[in-house]
């Protein structure tokens, strides 16, 4: 589900920035691999990358007023926090 969401964001982002789209595709691939091998570690790292990228894109928007679909990466913050808690840290 998350893999599909980020793959769609990557496609939408290509017009704005190819490199931002590459980052979103990497995040999608991380979630996809996690789903295939059935390991939560990929979900944890994928959501961490998506959250950090989302925060960066918000800051970049504040600096340049240029929108990036990467901003939507912040929606994975709850998933990241839940996974982090599950790993008992």
């Amino acid at each position, binding site marked *: 589900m998350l893999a599909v969401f980020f793959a769609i964001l990557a496609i939408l982002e290509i017009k704005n920035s190819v490199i931002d789209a*590459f*980052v979103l595709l*990497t995040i999608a*691939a991380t979630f996809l*691999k996690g789903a295939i091998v059935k390991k939560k570690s*990929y979900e944890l*790292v994928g959501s961490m990358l998506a959250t950090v990228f989302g925060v960066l894109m918000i800051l970049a928007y504040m*600096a340049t007023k240029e929108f990036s679909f990467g901003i939507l990466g912040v929606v994975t913050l709850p998933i990241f926090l839940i996974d982090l808690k599950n790993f008992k*840290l």
Partner: protein
Amino acid sequence: MKVAMVGNPNVGKTAILNALTGGNFTVGNFPGVTVEKKEGIGVINGKKIVFVDLPGIYSFEATSLDEKIARDYIFKEKPDLILNVVSAVNLERNLYLTLQLAEFGIPVILVVNMVDEAKKRGIFVDCQKLSELLGVPVVETVAIKGTGVENLKKAILGGGKVPKVYAHDIKQRIKLAEEIVNEVVKFVDKKYTFDDVLDEVFMDKHLGIPIFLSLMWMVFVFTYTIAEPFTSALDRVFSDLAAFIASNGGVVSSLLGKGIIAGVGSVLVFVPNILFLFIALAVLELSGYMPRAVYLLDSIMSKFGLNGRSVIPMMIGFGCNVPAILATRSIEDEKVRIATILINPFMSCSARLPIYVLIAGTLFPAIGSVVIMGLYLTGVVLALFSAFIFRNTLLKGETELIMELPPYMLPSFRDVWRLSWSRTKHFLEKAGTVILAASVIIWFITNYPGGTMESSYAAMMGKLLQPIFAPFGWNWQIVLALISGFAAKEIVVATLGVLKVNVATAFTPASAIAFMLFTLLYVPCVATMAAIKAEAGTKWTLFVIAYSFTLAYLLALLVMGVGIWL
């Protein structure tokens, strides 16, 4: 009392030094933070003690610069005590060094650091037994939390003991270390730690490199895009200040406004970029991710005679070549280090970007970003190509990478700030002083003897050197801009502006590409040359000037040739 601190890289020697002295030394979570010995003074029970933190080493064979520094120090300075810091996580490998210490006949205290990390991994060290076997006091610590530091202070006052175990050669050391570890280390069921969770993904054979590239892109966004409002604000401040002072008239105002403030200001406006870059890199470094990146890229870099550690200076080079060259200190192999220094000026620093933006934006408006990205990639390709040549001719030798992957940590704000500010401060000190001197010189040669640019020494120089660049069709003003770029690449655009060069008519598409390629490759700026001289010596500085100029000239000629042919 003088105490030397000895141990493998990344075992926490500097953190222990800070805990013992209340010092402010830069700590890292990356092997090779300490590249020179550093001293701190601590007072224990009223007794003044000088602690000397030596570079992290794996043996006293003195094959690398670090090992030579450590060995020479102990032999020549004869400290009263050696604090041998070892990591509880990897005790066996750390003990290879410990087993060489009896050679010096100096009392030793063994500090078993990072016991918390070891426990997390199910590793328990019996320190009492270890003390009995080695015949020296053993203290457990978690230096970054200050745990065990009071016990260590008491042990230091006790003075330590000369080790009773000694191994002459590497085979003996390996065997003995294994025997000792078998007796003192207990492995309880290895838990699936957070480090394992992260490593599974960050070191994934398919995702490792894309994740690294994504993180590097995030570093670039943070460095350039997010720092941009700060850079623009500083630029406005310096421009207004320079214009205000210069408007007062007179030689002193002109020197201050058009010379010093305009020149030094043109460099200081990039301080936010530099600081942001170092903050991002400090987070990656202190978190423990950077050594993983080094490990991931090692196989690619080794094809060109470099190793994974060359990646970090190359990445820093995109920000500024000066700190990048200083960052090569963590490369143990001297020949790899020199090769990494020599290729670093080919990494397009941020100062070259305004040149690309001006020329590509004017002559290739539709494909400007492609042209600029092409220049960045050309720099990387030429750097790797040059490294391959150097490592197979002048700097021949094998390359190998021995490094331990440190645990992941959540970096503290204090450590991130301390690390990034100390590097930024270094940049300010080094570049600021050189740029100040260069600014005065440029002001002088563009204002004297005639008082106008046309009749200045700079114009004379431009006209004198113009024939060398005649094959490229550049006029003397463009040549003068290139000469001014010798002081700092930012000044190239400023000079083109001052001389009112019409970029659209002064260049053909081929001569414009040749010009951008030339500015990418020709001699490094003065600050970079000063850094190369400090790190590699005069011989290599002269070599890099000659090599880069020749390469720039030949490639620019090639571009012109292809342009005429097309």
